[in-house]
């Protein structure tokens, strides 16, 4: 199994609290992938895969760590939460999800978002599976989130 694990590193000392990561995450996971259309269009605005935290002058944005021993994957009752064999990413299959919240309970980072009405996990970072590069990383104005490979080497957008 060839897998090149990529992770997003959070540099909390440099998060400026603008929350643009969320804006770009939402846009990237929208139908149009255009900010203005995403927010001002008719369709529903997607939920970002990012948990933004702020306390006093400190803030950061955290998203799924794609843990090597991901408890959300290991304990998923339906296999909705799974590890993509090719990329090593932890991904979520909405179709399979029944909303048992096992993953929510076990994620020590608390980064899985739910939709109560639908009874499904609604959003979880997929490292922008549709894009070449995670949108939050690309657009973070202060490089407070960076993409690294499994050796911790920074990956730049090419």
């Amino acid at each position, binding site marked *: 199994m060839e897998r090149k694990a990529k992770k997003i590193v959070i*540099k909390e*000392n*440099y*998060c*400026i*609290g*603008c*929350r*643009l990561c*969320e*804006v*770009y995450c939402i846009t990237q996971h929208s139908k149009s992938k255009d*900010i*203005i259309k*995403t*927010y*001002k269009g008719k369709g529903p605005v997607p939920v970002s895969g990012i948990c933004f935290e702020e306390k*006093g*002058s*400190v803030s950061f944005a955290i998203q799924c760590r794609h843990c090597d021993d991901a408890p959300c994957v290991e304990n998923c009752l339906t296999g909705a939460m799974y590890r993509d064999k090719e990329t090593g990413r932890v991904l979520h299959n909405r179709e399979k999800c029944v909303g048992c919240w096992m993953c929510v309970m076990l994620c020590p980072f608390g980064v899985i978002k739910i939709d109560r009405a639908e009874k499904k996990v609604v959003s979880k970072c997929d490292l922008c599976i549709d894009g070449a590069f995670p949108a939050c990383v690309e*657009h973070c*104005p*202060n*490089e*407070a989130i960076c993409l690294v490979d499994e050796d911790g080497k920074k990956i730049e957008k090419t």
Partner: protein
Amino acid sequence: MARAKSACEFVAERDESRCVKCQACVRVCANDVHSYDGDTGALFSDYSKCAGCHFCEDICPTGALTIRRNLSDTRENANWTKDYIYKIIRQSENGGVLLTGMGNDRPYRNYFEHIVLNASQVTNPSIDPLREPMELKTFIGRKPDRIEFSGAGKSGGHVLKQKIPPQIELESPIMFSAMSFGSISLNACKSLAKAACDFGVCWNTGEGGLHSELYPYSDRVIVQIASGRFGVNPDYLQRAAALEIKVGQGAKPGIGGHLPGEKVSEEISITRMIPAGTDALSPAPHHDIYSIEDLRQLIFALKEATGYVKPVGVKIAAVHNVAPIASGIVRAGADFITVDGIRGGTGAAPAAIRDNVGIPIELAVAAVDQRLREEGIRNQASLIAAGGFRTSADIVKAIALGADAVYIGTSALISLGCHVCQKCYTGKCNWGIATQDPYLTRRLNPEIGARRAYNLLRAWSLEIKEMLGGMGINAVESLRGNREQLRGVGLSELELKILGIKHAGESW
């Protein structure tokens, strides 16, 4: 009702068709210009608080914001401009001295814009600096007039009779000006320090002391010894690449400095070696230098303290008598002399001083270089020019006028994000530069800052190489003082004479 609300200098225009109400602007403005009303879902902007720093404009993901000058104006009046009127209004409110930040913003003649450069055509070849060797290496320090050596050594080589006085070696004749930790954030210091080290030039502590997180960059630091002597101890002197006695700065010749106690944080307190929360006061003069011979005493005190292995320089503001003063400084034993022109920047200075005291660096460099040459002591000290270098061409011109190297301050800060809003003294720099507020300082990621400042050094060095190549010169030392490469445009005879250059149209 003489009271007036403060002048709205700027307006933040919001294009509602583009605004997606992400509220990034609300979150980032340190001046609280923008606000979001949860009830109505509307965004408001209070222009009166806007400093014109453009941070919100740059952060807005949809380009919905544009900062413009507020067009509201007073009646047209050649003397009583809006600026002067509002200054009086502001002063009438509290009876205080007007403060400002950055360099002189008055429209004095900028001689750089009246000097043009030469290029080779036919009679000698221009050089392609990308492929052919092009050397910008510069040494700062005292040089002997001639070499002294004893005949052939064992291996047939020459043996120097004595080492030449200490030099600092620069890969490009551009250094970062003195900017203290205090006047700028630690992240800004780190950015510049790292860029300087990565590029092989020097940075300068200002009189802020040397924070321990900056130790990794101390190989290339010029430390300042200023009137407040903040952070000065043997360790500080020992770590440095060179020492600089700060007598004056271009933005406020004859004026001291004052870092208010509320900005003296724990970190600054440690670095400056003063109790946290107390005012850091730099007296106007050094109270151990009331005359030139006292300067000599301090220069040699520093040389003694550091074992004569580091160049010791003196920084002065360019004032009327700059050339003889410089000569005196060189004769007092300085290894380099820094002259800071009237456009030199500052974190805070009385506007009246900043805008009216001193002379332009172009004239000062020309006068000092010429004076030192006339006295036959030009070799004895390097000349560093400072104060308002905005482009590589300014640097080329300064070097051709006689500078060995230049200090860049404002342009370095612009590379870190500064938009020259001139509000440094408020401590609310949205770009995380001229502030100690942890919420704001984190905005300057030193990794990015170092990369950007490095890029500026690289870009300007490349441009300098291009200009040198055009002149058919492949080592910057052949530009230094080479005023033949300059011509004035639209300058009076007296100005040309002071600059020591011919007018455009005159051939060799």
